[in-house]
């Protein structure tokens, strides 16, 4: 496959940045998208040019590091996958592919296609945990009965890998699917009840302070989420937040 790539290049956080065109030939349809970028970078390095900076780690679709907005969609045109699991067979010979960083004021560009997603870490620090005494006399989690339906829903919410595709794809750059999943995974379990009020209030407060937009329920986040996190989690967070606001 021969492709034209239009890639966002930005030297650093203060640089204005621009789209730059690259030609790449002999791309195998079996390559992953990141492998294709590796080949491009080899070519750039051999020519003495600066390689394209992009995030990646496990390349197995589970770490949430790879991002990229490909042809107008977070993680590209495939569904239920991260960019490392996107294969070049999803494209055709002669295609022009736009590759951009995840765009949101709360996700500033560090370099080229790498964005700073530490806003998600700060939201987690605000309440995305349970306080358990681990000094040796902790009750085995399996000894606490959990209704099967709730256990399944909590597990589904916990599959969120925090990649930020929900924010990138949302027309409002809202982080509510991420926060909804993190609130839900604890709200559905007995271990999460003790700190439920503070958790949702603090996490939503932090989310707002980070400058994410407001959810308008377009549902784009659910479609583009590589882990299929449901909008149901946002509704649950809304319920939790209202309950907590009335209590607090």
């Amino acid at each position, binding site marked *: 496959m021969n492709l034209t790539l239009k890639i966002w290049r930005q030297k650093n956080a203060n640089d204005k940045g621009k789209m730059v065109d690259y030609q790449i030939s002999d791309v195998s349809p079996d390559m992953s998208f990141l492998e294709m970028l590796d080949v491009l970078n080899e070519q750039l390095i051999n020519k003495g040019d600066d390689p394209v900076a992009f995030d990646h780690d496990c390349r197995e679709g589970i770490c949430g590091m790879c991002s990229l907005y490909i042809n107008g969609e977070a993680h590209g045109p495939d569904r239920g996958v991260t960019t490392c699991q996107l294969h070049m067979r999803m494209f055709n010979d002669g295609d022009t592919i736009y590759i951009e960083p995840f765009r949101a004021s709360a996700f500033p560009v560090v370099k080229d296609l790498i964005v700073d997603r530490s806003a998600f870490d700060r939201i987690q620090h605000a309440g995305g945990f349970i306080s358990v005494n681990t000094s040796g006399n902790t009750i085995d989690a399996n000894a606490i009965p959990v209704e099967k339906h709730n256990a399944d829903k909590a597990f589904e919410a916990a599959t969120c890998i925090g990649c930020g595709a929900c924010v990138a794809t949302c027309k409002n750059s*809202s982080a509510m699917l991420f926060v909804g999943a993190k609130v839900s995974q604890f709200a559905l379990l007995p271990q999460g009840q003790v700190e439920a009020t503070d958790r949702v209030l603090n996490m939503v407060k932090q989310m707002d302070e980070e*400058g*994410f*937009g407001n959810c308008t329920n377009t549902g*784009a986040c659910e*479609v583009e989420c590589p882990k299929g996190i449901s909008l149901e989690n946002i509704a649950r967070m809304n319920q939790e*937040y209202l309950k907590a606001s009335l209590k607090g």
Partner: protein
Amino acid sequence: MSGILNSSIGRKFAMALSAFFLMFFLLQHFVINLLSVISPETFNEVSYFMGNNPFVQFLLQPVLLIGVLFHFIMGFVLEIKNRKARQISYAKNNGGANSSWMSRNMIWSGGAILLFMIFHFNDFWVPEIVEKYVEGKSQLGKDFHHHVVEMFLDPLRVGVYVLAFVFLALHLLHGFDSAFQSVGANNKYTKGLKTFGKLYAILVPLGFVFIALYHHFFHIH
């Protein structure tokens, strides 16, 4: 509780509550308008009651005006905030791949409805208020039905109304179930609610269009 309206979720909740109120109002407005087709006499009686009952005039009417203003102002405030949340746009964005046109363009359909409401208020509400509270005239025995029929003789006005109801339908097609999602209702009833929402969003505006066209083409006094 104090900071709830300063939070993103609180604002969503407030938008949803005002939307529920407006959707309920829309339904009762439609039912009363339908009377103008079914029974002009009953329409006149109900119109007189709505325009002269102190509870409707001095409690429900101000609440409705506040609800309408709140929904529009909050809609525009949220749009500005949301635009600030992404200051650099994508060079290529394929929004149609993951969301409906209606959901992405609520601000435009809402803006069109706002323009229509200015037009509509000028047609009906403002002359009523002037007649009652400025000129101090009694509306006892007034032929409200005649006024409606006269207004819809103008094809341009009918065209504006039909177009406005298309925008209203587009707005409601997303807005109805969005309001339920905002208040946290996403459960086993959601599928049925969405179907009901689609029917509401299409049938109610279609009903208003029917009434406008009926009076234009049949103008029965």
